């Protein structure tokens, strides 16, 4: 069957290339017409001419990006090589340079591929479950890398110097003040040692864990050094590392958002049509396996149905009578208030649970552990129940499907982040006696030192417990709910199991879980420097757990909405969490008095106070320079300049949008002109005949 093939018109190396534009080959006539669209390679172009054209070292397009058959590309390459042999001097040097640069790029890319974490797993996930699920795992990988790099930062600047200082032995540092009672702090109360106390301490961050590098309380504020050659200001380093950590995370997030946003801005910002996108880019060519293919087809079918359904709903909404419109809107407002009420109940529950937990936190044993974890338990239960109830409410609201999903997601985001905020608020009110520093408990040390001998460590412990509980709940759900569910559904065929079906991997709620975990870490990083490391380990465990459950227990979600599975959306939600953590950090830095009994900021009025103090130890010139930067003479012109730059970019973006619209209109007009001219020609032909 191979024998009866057409012989190629061209020799194997293209040496008998006659020099005209078309290779002498037998081709089907229509595909010859499609060459019209391809870029032409100019055989007569002299490389020397190209170079003194614009003075740019723009090489001719890479051969492999040209849409030609292989033989033609190889022929072109041969011609180029022959030319390269002939020319000397600058051109050949430049050509060699571009060539070696490309080779270097390729080698670097291959090298980085080798190091790219979990690349094969991600491909497998994408091929079998689609882009939405893959984007969750890509987001998870991003967070793992972010946390690990942050840990390296903190370890380098804070933990390592502290280790060195500790092992070198510390001198006396106690200034005698009149706040004797505030200096009492004993993280390791000796008492009856129960045999399971190790695990209790491990789970609640007390005892041996409290008296370690884990928490703020262990660090000292000594800056002087034995031999006087090196001096390292640990408190200043601690503060600046925390601030830089936040800035670094913000830069990473915005850098990642930038690539996604660039496409939207450059094309005029208009959301492009759904239908053409689905039809032409809906199919994932990397889909492997029969089952994945069928699911992909169902997915595309469902997406088209959703769009068609939206059309129908729009038509129906436009045809509603005014009375029905009013009824619908009142129903929506009512449902919104109910949803708000549900969320408010959850918040109140968290508030009460935190207060109770902080007040009764000195019980022993399992009961004590339970009370300590009470806020985490209430938050997790709330985050689980309230979205379920809101989903039921959403059924009554009768929004179109895409709006329903976005609204549900927004509610879940608000629930998660604000519940964390409520927890922080409750802690704050406990620590500072609700801001009233004249109260009996807080009057002495400007914070509640009866309950909290070292309040920063307590906050760090709370964040540590939240992180740990999150991981334990995920693993527990995996083992106790998802695996049994799959076994029940697979082995017991009844109507109920058909109805329930296999677990669906719902991307948005999983992503919210990740954002929540990361926000907790950001909030706690100031008080528990090892928390990013713990979070890295937690996310790595989470990756493997989720991967296992995905492949064993889940079927892919039939209902996917692009907007809610895009990386841009995840990063926006992550930014909200970052903002919340930033507010908490700034407040603790600038307002609350640090503990007297522990930590690097022992004798400052606020944590931030160390910066002005150290400022005066800088040289005169630096001080003047920094004063100048902070003064109005500098900041007002800078502000004005940034306003001008921003206006320029906004104007540029709007001009692009407008020119895109104008060009589109022009294209339409030209198309109509062409049709008109064709009709005229035909009319004239008919008249002539």
């Amino acid at each position, binding site marked *: *069957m*191979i024998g009866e*093939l*057409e*012989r*190629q018109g061209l020799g*194997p190396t293209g040496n008998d290339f006659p020099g005209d534009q078309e290779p002498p*080959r*037998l*081709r*089907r006539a*229509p*595909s010859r*017409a*499609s060459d019209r*669209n391809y870029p032409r390679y100019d055989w007569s172009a002299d490389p020397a001419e190209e170079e003194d054209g614009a003075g740019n070292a723009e090489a001719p397009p890479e*051969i*492999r*990006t*040209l*849409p030609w*058959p*292989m033989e033609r*590309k*190889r022929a072109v*390459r041969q011609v180029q090589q022959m030319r390269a042999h002939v020319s000397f001097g600058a051109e050949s040097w430049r050509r060699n340079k571009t060539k070696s640069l490309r080779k270097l790029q390729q080698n670097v*890319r*291959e090298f980085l591929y080798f190091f790219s974490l979990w690349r094969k797993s991600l491909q497998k996930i*994408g091929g079998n479950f689609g*882009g939405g699920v893959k984007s969750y795992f890509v987001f998870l990988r991003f967070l793992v890398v972010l946390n690990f790099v942050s840990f390296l930062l903190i370890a380098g600047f804070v933990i390592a110097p502290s280790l060195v200082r500790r092992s070198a032995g510390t001198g006396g540092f106690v200034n005698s003040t009149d706040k004797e009672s505030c200096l009492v702090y004993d993280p390791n109360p000796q008492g009856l040692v129960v045999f399971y106390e190790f695990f209790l301490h491990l789970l609640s961050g007390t005892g041996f864990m409290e008296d370690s590098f884990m928490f703020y309380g262990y660090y000292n504020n000594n800056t002087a050094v034995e031999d006087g050659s090196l001096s390292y200001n640990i408190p200043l380093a601690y503060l600046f590392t925390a601030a830089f950590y936040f800035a670094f995370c913000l830069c990473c997030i915005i850098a990642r958002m930038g690539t*996604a946003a660039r*496409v939207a801005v450059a*094309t005029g910002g208009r959301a*492009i*049509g759904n*239908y*053409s*996108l689905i*039809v*032409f*880019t*809906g*199919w*994932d*060519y*990397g*889909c*492997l396996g*029969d089952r994945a*293919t069928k699911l992909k*087809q169902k997915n*595309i*079918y469902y997406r*088209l149905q959703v769009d*068609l359904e939206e059309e129908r709903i729009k038509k129906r909404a436009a045809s509603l009578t005014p009375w029905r419109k009013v009824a619908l809107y009142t129903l929506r407002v009512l449902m919104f208030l109910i949803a708000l009420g549900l969320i408010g109940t959850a918040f109140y529950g968290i508030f009460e649970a935190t207060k109770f937990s902080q007040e009764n936190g000195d019980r022993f044993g399992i009961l004590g552990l339970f009370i300590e974890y009470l806020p985490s338990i209430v938050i997790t239960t709330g985050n689980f129940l309230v979205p379920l109830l809101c989903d039921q409410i959403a059924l009554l609201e009768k929004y179109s499907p895409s709006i329903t999903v976005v609204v549900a997601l927004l509610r879940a985001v608000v629930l998660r982040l604000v519940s964390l905020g409520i927890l922080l608020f409750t802690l704050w009110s406990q620590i500072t006696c609700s801001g009233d520093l004249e109260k009996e408990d807080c009057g002495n040390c400007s914070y509640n030192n009866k309950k909290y001998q070292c309040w920063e460590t307590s906050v760090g412990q709370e964040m540590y417990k939240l992180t740990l509980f999150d991981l334990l709940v995920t693993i527990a759900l995996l083992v106790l709910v998802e695996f049994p569910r799959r076994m029940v559904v697979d082995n017991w065929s009844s109507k109920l199991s058909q109805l329930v079906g296999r677990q669906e991997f719902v991307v948005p709620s999983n992503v919210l879980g990740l954002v929540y975990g990361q926000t907790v870490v950001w909030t706690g990083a100031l008080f528990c420097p090892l928390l990013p490391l713990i979070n890295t380990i937690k996310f790595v465990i989470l990756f493997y757990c989720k991967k296992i459950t995905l492949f064993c227990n889940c079927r892919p979600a039939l209902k996917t909405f692009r907007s809610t599975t895009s990386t841009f959306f995840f990063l926006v939600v992550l930014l909200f969490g970052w903002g919340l953590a930033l507010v908490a950090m700034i407040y603790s830095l600038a307002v609350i008095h640090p503990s007297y009994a522990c930590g690097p900021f022992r004798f400052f009025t606020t944590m931030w106070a160390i910066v002005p103090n150290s400022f005066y130890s800088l040289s005169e010139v630096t001080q003047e320079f920094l004063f100048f930067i902070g003064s109005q003479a500098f900041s007002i012109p800078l502000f004005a300049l940034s306003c001008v730059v921003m206006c320029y970019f906004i104007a540029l973006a709007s001009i692009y949008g407008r020119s895109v619209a104008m060009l*589109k209109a022009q*294209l*339409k007009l030209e198309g109509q002109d*062409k*049709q008109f001219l064709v009709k005229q020609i035909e009319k004239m032909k008919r008249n002539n005949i």
Partner: protein
Amino acid sequence: MGNKQTIFTDEQLDAYQDCTFFTRKEILRLHGRYHELAPHLVPMDYTNEPDCKLPLALIVDMPELKENPFRNRIVESFSEDGMGNLSFNEFVDMFSVLSETAPRELKAIYAFKIYDFNVDNYLCKEDLEKTLNRLTKEELTPEEVDLVCEKTIDEADLDGDNKLSYSDFENMISRAPDFLSTFHIRI
């Protein structure tokens, strides 16, 4: 990177490396895959450029293409005779365009060819209907197919001639964020 391999000359491998998005290792691996499709027909020694073509039926049996609803069109777009018979050069070309590092413009050109069922250089309504039916395995009703095709042409047609030329298609693809990642077969 074997100096010991005898399948291709070094010069051939260099040429392949420059003309595709594959490295030497990957090209040798591709030759292995091509060979195992028809071990009796594909020679192991390509140094003198043997003239060997595999028919469509063998190529679309590959696991990477087997389940793809457009597998026939893909292979036909890359075959010179338009019937789907691929020589090794065309085979490598096909997977090079579908690889991860191929640029967007190149992929768009071939995507257009793939979706152009009647090969008239335009995506007309019949082409779209065929595409849609293959995408959804004919589960949409004819009215729905009609509606979707109309809306697609509405959205993408810029010059108002009720069919999509290559520039319409390219313009629409340039704004599709995940085109690069979906139009990708890993081999």
